[in-house]
């Protein structure tokens, strides 16, 4: 026999009594868990074991160790962005694109651009493509005995990989871009902020040398100022479930570990790409040559994020329409600039596609 239902006014009182007791108790428990979390060890980042195969100035070329035989596929060279640390693609155990590809049998390599010092203000965008990236590709092909590599570039790394593929087609077996900006006159806020009238990039680099990491990070936070609050709320919600906090904590650690951008690289990136949008007009000069996107004839996979506010999806997808390749695929996944490629959604939506695509074209 069920208990008789309470009259509504008593039920409300009962709910109020329960809430009055449980809410502060729950808040105290969460605060204690948060303190324990902050006092505890940091989440390990960049967990996949690797060997440093080559160094040049601050750059390191990493080759990830494998436990099983490699596929008969071209080696995969990951080209991360130059405005953040490389290990976003090897974030933490279970959220590492490197680990995923390696476990699928690929021979995975990654460029760590290093931390530029004040003297690196003179390192140019051309140096990144024609010296550093070229040397890394040369080193990978020499070590593996393969003629060409599969380039997988993330964000500005995707732009560098694209420039390289256009200039050195014979050395690239396939090209994958993850949220790589190509058409810079998009609807994004960064495009609006960097217009010459508002942003004196020449004066800034002449005065400061390198572009300070703190300023870049602040500008990214301003793109969607409520994100930090949402992340903190999510942390509060899950603070009693440490296993669900591994990814956000690793991501937070990565987000606080920033690097300056070499001044001359930043100058050209803003002036020729954001302000003049030369790449899509085939007028961008790298190493004294014009970059023509139609010279990219290798298979191309363009991966974008539907809610990307740093590199809006149409900016990346413009590449697929301009290359000379007959094998160009575009996939727009859910999420934002980072989560779409390293977060839980990436594991479901993006990584399996990338694996199949690379395996088919290897």
């Amino acid at each position, binding site marked *: 026999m069920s208990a008789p239902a309470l009259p509504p006014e008593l039920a409300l009182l009962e*709910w109020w009594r329960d*809430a009055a007791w449980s*809410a502060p108790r729950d808040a105290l428990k969460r605060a204690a868990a948060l303190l324990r979390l902050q006092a505890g060890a940091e989440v390990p980042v960049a967990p996949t074991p690797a060997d440093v195969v080559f160094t*040049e*100035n601050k750059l390191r070329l990493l080759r990830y160790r494998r436990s099983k035989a490699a596929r008969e596929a071209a080696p995969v060279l990951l080209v991360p962005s130059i405005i953040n640390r490389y290990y976003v693609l090897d974030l933490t155990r279970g959220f590492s694109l490197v680990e995923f590809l390696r476990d699928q049998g690929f021979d995975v390599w990654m460029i760590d651009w290093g931390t530029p*010092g*004040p*003297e*690196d*203000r*003179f*390192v140019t965008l051309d140096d990144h493509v024609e*010296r550093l990236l070229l*040397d890394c590709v040369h080193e990978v092909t*020499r070590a593996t005995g393969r003629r060409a590599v599969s380039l997988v570039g993330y964000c500005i790394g995707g732009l560098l990989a694209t420039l390289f593929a256009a200039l050195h087609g014979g050395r690239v077996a396939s090209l994958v871009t993850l949220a790589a900006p190509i058409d810079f006159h998009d609807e994004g*806020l960064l495009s*609006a*902020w960097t*217009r010459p*009238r*508002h*942003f*004196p990039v020449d*004066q*800034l680099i*002449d*005065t*400061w*040398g390198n572009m300070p990491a703190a300023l870049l990070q602040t500008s990214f936070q*301003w793109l*969607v*100022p*409520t994100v930090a*609050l*949402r992340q903190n*709320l999510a942390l509060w919600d899950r603070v009693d479930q440490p296993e669900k906090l591994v990814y956000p904590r690793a991501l937070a650690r990565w987000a606080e570990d920033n690097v300056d951008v070499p001044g001359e690289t930043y100058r050209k990136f803003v002036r020729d790409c954001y302000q003049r949008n030369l790449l899509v007009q085939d007028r961008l000069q790298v190493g004294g040559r014009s970059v023509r996107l139609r010279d990219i004839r290798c298979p191309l996979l363009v991966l974008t994020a539907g809610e990307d506010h740093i590199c809006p999806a149409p900016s990346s997808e413009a590449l697929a329409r301009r290359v000379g390749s007959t094998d160009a695929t575009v996939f727009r996944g859910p999420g934002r600039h980072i989560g779409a490629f390293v977060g839980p959604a990436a594991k479901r939506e993006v990584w399996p596609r990338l694996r199949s695509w690379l395996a088919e074209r290897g």
Partner: protein
Amino acid sequence: MDPTRYGRDLFDIWEKHTSRWWDTALRSPLLLEAMGDTLRRSLRLQEAARASADTWLRLAGLPTPAEHLHLQHRLNQLEADLQRLRRLTAEP
């Protein structure tokens, strides 16, 4: 009845509207021009201070910080070139 759910729903509504407002505000030519002008003025001041420090260093017959950095960069480039040459000569 879960009061936290209402809190979350309210937060979602607030976030949606705030984000939209921020996006419009941060595109405003008025704001961008004001920020650009402030940045320009601040850079001009810093540049003047640096130029003045450089003048004093030159008068004292010392290299400027920029000259130091340039030299360091050239040395880094030279080291990389040597490394490249060594690799090329070592290859069969």
